[in-house]
């Protein structure tokens, strides 16, 4: 009974969304009565309420172990703690799509009820929101229904959630990421409504700015959490692999970063009008493109989620229609958006535009990298794969230029040019400091610094020094300092620095050890003490115990290998001990013939700093809401 109730609510919600958009369209094209507008709004709210209720009931079903629901039966288990019963909902395609749509409705519902209803294109916002939501609900109900049931013979217990997904970081990583992706539906809908409405004097960016920044914060945190989870739970030992699934998350992030920056320029000096509109539309479009790539299986990824041509086709058509519609409207309206204000070269907005171009270039390069195997396959009999070397060579020069522009732009001002002498003087100190620091690392490190790594170090140092100098000046003069921006950009500089340092200093060693063997390298020593076998409720385990001694400091490491009973799945539990600069990361492998075991020891330098810098970037943005900008 209850599963049908949840299903019915979702169908009802889809119907009401369609109804709301239809009344809206009829009213908008005819007499625009206030009463009908109210009806459109109320119907939308009711539809949103039904969907929230439907999702709440679904959560209840998951908690209550209703294994008559096929999706819950194949992804949950009665032995799971409640926390993972709930998170099992988004552990596969159908449920995660349900969550995605619920968030979409949540954001749009919040926005619509937050904005003033005497807003000049209020009704258009509701119409487009309702159409968008209806389309996705149709996709969910028709091609990937999480409500299907196993009747009359209901399984006694569920098939269990994949053990590697039983992890707090993974439980919150998808929701965070989706909140980010879907959050950009607000600027998307708002911009389309603005373009159709046709009052181009209206300052559309004012209302949308904070919403976009919020969504940006979620997107950044979501990507960071995903990277962290892959590192410590999947035992990959790294943070980023340039896999298509990761790349399609990076594209909207870059577009969102460009969008929020150019919106800032628009706000300050009324330039880049149509460019900002274009970026605003592209963020959500790229999010949808990502959803299509991940959920259709057209691109061969090591970890793809669902390979279903029917879903792929539906998504492709829907995403293509949305994109085409948005871009067509933009192109039609473009001539009327003509702006008589131009960007003054040498002003802050000019540097910002340059970095915008770099960001779009990088999006374009990633896009080509993701699509190239598909294009290549069309014309050739065999296939290819595009890996990290491509992306690294593309990104390094772009980041190098971007860092220099960021550094210069700190001391520039809005709407007027600074003379070159002054700019050069200000750039001189951080520039020299960064060159010296990079050179210091080059000479003092035992490793060969590649050109790419040197670029990473230099760019990171340059951004950090530039902002530190500004902060230092602040101590003596009462100059204005934009704290949120400073912190976010320091985070970005630190990110580049940590990535470069990680790739330069990290060490990986594959070892074969018997009990009581030790392995020495440099000033450190690893000793394999013993191995234990044990049984837990839902898995059996092998746990090795090792000592890592470095300069008199002792670290106890206990990596594990587990075999879960329900699925027979084997997982490795990495053991990680962190110091200020590095992670000592150890994985246990197989037992080989002479009873010894294989281990992988990694010393990952600065990897914690990567996540700390992502935190700084997010924190800086959130700070914006608490610190009054001048």
């Amino acid at each position, binding site marked *: 009974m209850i599963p049908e109730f949840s299903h019915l609510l979702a169908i009802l919600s889809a119907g009401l969304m369609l109804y709301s958009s239809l009344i809206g369209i009829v009213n908008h094209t005819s007499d625009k009565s206030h009463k009908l507008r109210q009806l459109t709004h109320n119907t939308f709210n009711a539809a949103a309420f039904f969907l929230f209720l439907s999702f709440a009931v679904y959560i209840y079903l998951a908690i209550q172990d209703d294994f008559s629901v096929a999706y819950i039966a194949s992804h949950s288990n009665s032995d799971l703690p409640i926390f993972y019963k709930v998170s099992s909902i988004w552990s596969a395609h159908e449920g995660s799509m349900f969550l995605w749509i619920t968030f979409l409705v949540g954001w749009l519902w919040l926005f619509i009820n937050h904005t003033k209803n005497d807003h000049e294109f209020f009704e258009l916002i509701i119409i487009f929101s309702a159409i968008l939501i209806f389309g996705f609900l149709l996709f969910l109900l028709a091609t990937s229904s999480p409500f299907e049931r196993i009747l009359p013979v209901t399984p006694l217990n569920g098939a269990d959630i994949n053990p590697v997904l039983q992890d707090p970081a993974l439980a919150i990583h998808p929701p965070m990421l989706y909140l980010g992706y879907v959050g950009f539906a607000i600027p998307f809908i708002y911009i389309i409504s603005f373009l159709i409405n046709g009052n181009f004097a209206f300052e559309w960016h004012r209302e949308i700015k904070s919403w976009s920044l919020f969504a940006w914060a979620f997107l950044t945190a979501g990507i960071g959490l995903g990277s962290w989870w892959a590192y410590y739970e999947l035992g990959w030992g790294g943070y980023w692999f340039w896999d298509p699934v990761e790349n399609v998350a990076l594209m909207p992030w870059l577009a969102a970063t460009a969008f929020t920056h150019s919106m800032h320029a628009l706000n300050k000096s009324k330039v880049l009008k149509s460019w900002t509109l274009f970026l605003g539309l592209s963020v959500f479009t790229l999010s949808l493109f990502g959803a299509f790539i991940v959920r259709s299986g057209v691109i061969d990824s*090591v*970890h*793809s989620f669902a*390979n279903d041509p029917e879903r792929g086709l539906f998504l492709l058509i829907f995403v293509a229609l949305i994109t085409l519609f948005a871009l067509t409207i933009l192109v039609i309206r473009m001539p009327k958006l003509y702006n008589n204000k131009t960007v003054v070269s040498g002003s802050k907005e000019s540097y910002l535009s340059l970095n915008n171009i770099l960001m779009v270039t990088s999006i374009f390069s990633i896009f080509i990298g993701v699509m190239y195997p598909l294009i290549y*396959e069309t014309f050739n009999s*065999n296939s*290819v794969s595009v890996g990290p070397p491509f992306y690294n060579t*593309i990104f390094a020069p772009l980041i190098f230029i971007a860092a220099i522009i960021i550094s210069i732009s700190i001391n520039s001002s809005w709407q007027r040019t600074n003379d070159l002498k002054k700019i050069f003087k200000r750039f001189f100190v951080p520039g020299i400091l960064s060159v010296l620091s990079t050179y210091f690392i080059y000479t003092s490190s035992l490793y060969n610094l590649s050109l790419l790594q040197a670029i990473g170090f230099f760019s990171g140092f340059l951004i950090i020094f530039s902002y530190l100098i500004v902060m230092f000046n602040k101590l003596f003069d009462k100059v204005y300092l934009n704290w949120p921006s400073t912190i976010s950009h320091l985070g970005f500089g630190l990110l580049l620095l940590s990535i470069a340092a990680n790739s330069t200093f990290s060490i990986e060693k594959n*070892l*074969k050890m018997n009990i009581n063997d030790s392995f020495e390298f440099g000033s450190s020593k690893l000793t394999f003490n013993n191995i234990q076998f044990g049984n837990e409720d839902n898995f059996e385990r092998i746990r090795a115990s090792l000592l890592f001694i470095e300069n008199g400091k002792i670290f106890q490491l206990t990596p594990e290998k587990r075999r879960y009973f329900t699925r027979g799945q084997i997982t490795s539990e990495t053991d990680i001990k962190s110091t200020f600069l590095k992670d000592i990361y150890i994985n246990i492998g197989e037992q080989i013939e002479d009873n010894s075991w294989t281990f992988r020891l990694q010393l990952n330098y600065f990897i914690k700093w990567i996540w700390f810098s992502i935190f700084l970037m997010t924190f800086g943005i959130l700070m914006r809401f608490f610190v009054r900008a001048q």
Partner: protein
Amino acid sequence: MLEHRKNRLKNIFLILLCLSIGVGFILYSLNSKIDLYLSPSEIDFQNLPTTRIKLGGVVKKNSIRYEQTLVNFTLTDFSGEIDVIFEGIPPDLFKENSGAVVLGRFSLNKLFVAEELFAKHDENYMPPNKNISSIYDS
């Protein structure tokens, strides 16, 4: 008016020029940075590829052997087989009769030396366009 049009044409031309130079650079970089993605039956033993390639297939049953820190196994697509050697700890999902992808080169003795080893985590074993069910049916 004519001047205005001339300017616009000049701009369009400039944008196209920049764009094509950019795309040219990207494609050039792509060509030197991509790896061919092959399956075992596509390997010609008389004429082994000399560049780094990606090889995808299924780990043959009873073929995994561990030796020191090396892993030896055979990758198959049910019509061709390649012996692979990898130094390190394979991922958790690496097992017999499961999909794996390796990145590396052929050594002189026709052994594939993998620099990286991935285990695929879905039911799709093969590189794209190679339908597993058609192999089972035949």
